[in-house]
């Protein structure tokens, strides 16, 4: 547990790129503090006293074995579910008051199949210029020419880009990414990494990425956090310059984190792997 205590003791070191400061189109990032989070589903402990602190504009990746509670942590931060005990604040205030500052990108893009691409982006967007802003957001993810199509005809990567545009058009101060690239092929993933990084640098929001891919975490995040046994077990700063390229430096980070993940006793891992994901099952799904 030395890694846990040392991580909490050290002040947040954020390696900010020089381009970040000038002319942010967004509203900047929010500071997120989560203290002593407890959550259980049907008597099964998922989070047991988890603490997480994120500086404004920081990019955090949360890794861990499947069923470790990383998605639950994201759902709690998103306000999709309530904590059993603990406190989550955004800029020092209860995060329930900041719901409009938080946006989520889901693993399955969750597009409305009956709305055209542009209307999907404009979902829940107030004001007369909603369509205009939606068009702008679409252009940022390179989908401007698909505005009038149905989501059903888009590829997996395009669907996630659309979901990203839909989240960004609200200029969130905290963007939560729930394994959004899990279902994409390797090339599309690399493209998406670059896109997400570029938009994050441009908008300056705080980002939290949940993933089970350690190399994805190292490619994107300022800090990689490992959840194990229901709490934060490792907090590793990734001091690599942006834009990041794969190389010996990133490989060394990946190896160190992976080694730590695999330290867990075999039997425990199997037991957790057998348990279902804590997310509620979805109902009937659209065949799109």
């Amino acid at each position, binding site marked *: 547990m030395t890694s846990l205590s040392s991580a909490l003791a050290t002040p947040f070191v954020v390696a900010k790129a020089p381009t970040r400061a000038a002319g942010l189109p967004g509203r900047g990032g929010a500071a997120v503090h989560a203290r002593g989070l407890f959550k259980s589903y049907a008597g099964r402990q998922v989070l047991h006293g988890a603490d997480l602190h994120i500086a404004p504009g920081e990019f955090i990746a949360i890794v861990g074995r499947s069923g470790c509670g990383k998605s639950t942590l994201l759902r709690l931060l998103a306000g999709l579910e309530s904590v059993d005990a603990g406190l989550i604040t955004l800029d020092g205030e209860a995060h329930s008051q900041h719901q409009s500052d938080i946006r989520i990108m889901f693993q399955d893009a969750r597009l409305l199949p*009956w709305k055209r691409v542009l209307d999907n982006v404009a979902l*829940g967007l107030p004001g007369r210029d909603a369509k205009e802003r939606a068009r702008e957001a679409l252009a940022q993810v390179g989908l401007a020419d698909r505005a009038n199509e*149905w989501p059903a005809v888009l590829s997996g990567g395009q669907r996630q880009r659309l979901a990203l545009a839909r989240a960004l058009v609200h200029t969130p101060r905290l963007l939560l990414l729930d394994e959004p690239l899990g279902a994409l092929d390797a090339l599309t993933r690399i493209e998406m990494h670059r896109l997400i990084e570029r938009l994050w640098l441009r908008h300056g929001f705080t980002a939290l990425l949940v993933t089970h891919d350690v190399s994805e975490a190292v490619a994107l995040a300022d800090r990689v956090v490992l959840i194990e046994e229901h709490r934060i077990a490792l907090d590793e700063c990734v001091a690599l310059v942006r834009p990041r390229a794969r190389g010996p430096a990133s490989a060394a980070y990946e190896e160190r984190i992976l080694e730590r993940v695999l330290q867990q006793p075999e039997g425990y891992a199997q037991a957790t792997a057998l348990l279902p994901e804590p997310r509620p099952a979805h109902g009937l799904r659209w065949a799109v």
Partner: protein
Amino acid sequence: MVNRAFQRSLPWLFPIAVLALWQLSSQAGWLSTRVLPEPWAVLKAFWALTVSGEIWQHVATSTWRAALGFAIGGGLGLLLGLLTGTFRPAEMLLDSSLQMIRNIPALALIPLVILWFGIDESAKLFLVALGVFFPIYLNTFHGIRSVDKGLIEMARSYRLSGWQLYTQVILPGAVASILVGVRFSLGLTWVLLIVAETISAQAGIGYMTMNAREFLQTDVVLVGILLYALLGKLADLLAKGLERWWLRWHPGYQEVAAA
């Protein structure tokens, strides 16, 4: 090209052969006119009724009854389906009673309906409305309940709630299922109307058919039967058109539209 033309004519081949055989056997005297009039006689009867204008009066009366009955029964089914699908307490309160009533065949109520409403318009409308109600109610309920929970969660996290959530996410998600109910109901409408119009009526296709039977005008009886088939098909086409428009986002329906 020839192959394509052949494929297109294939569905017509069988009915045309049947018609030809029918016409032939009538002319040869194998089929009595009292059993089945020849197709040519049916066509002539249809023409005579059209020219005299009598047929339009009956078609208009029947269509009006079908439309009104469908609107009342279908509208109530949609409303109650939305209510029980959306609110659990409404489901607890109403659903089991409705399921019980659903299992009574609408036509079994004819004696009671005649006692309640007499033999005028309202009895016919009641029968049609009752029969049409349940398919739409059930499919609306099912459609609302099976909307993707992930989409609702997403919409809520995008600050959609109440009416907005309902009209932009829940209702469009249920439309496919509701339309299945509509198509099923449209078929039922005509079945129920035929029976209802034979109870006692002063106009309508059913009246025309029953009247013709009294005078052994089998050709007019056949015209009536064909009219029901034609109107039923027309109603189905209308429902299909609605599907194509409302479900144009759905890949399953886009293929149909392209074909």
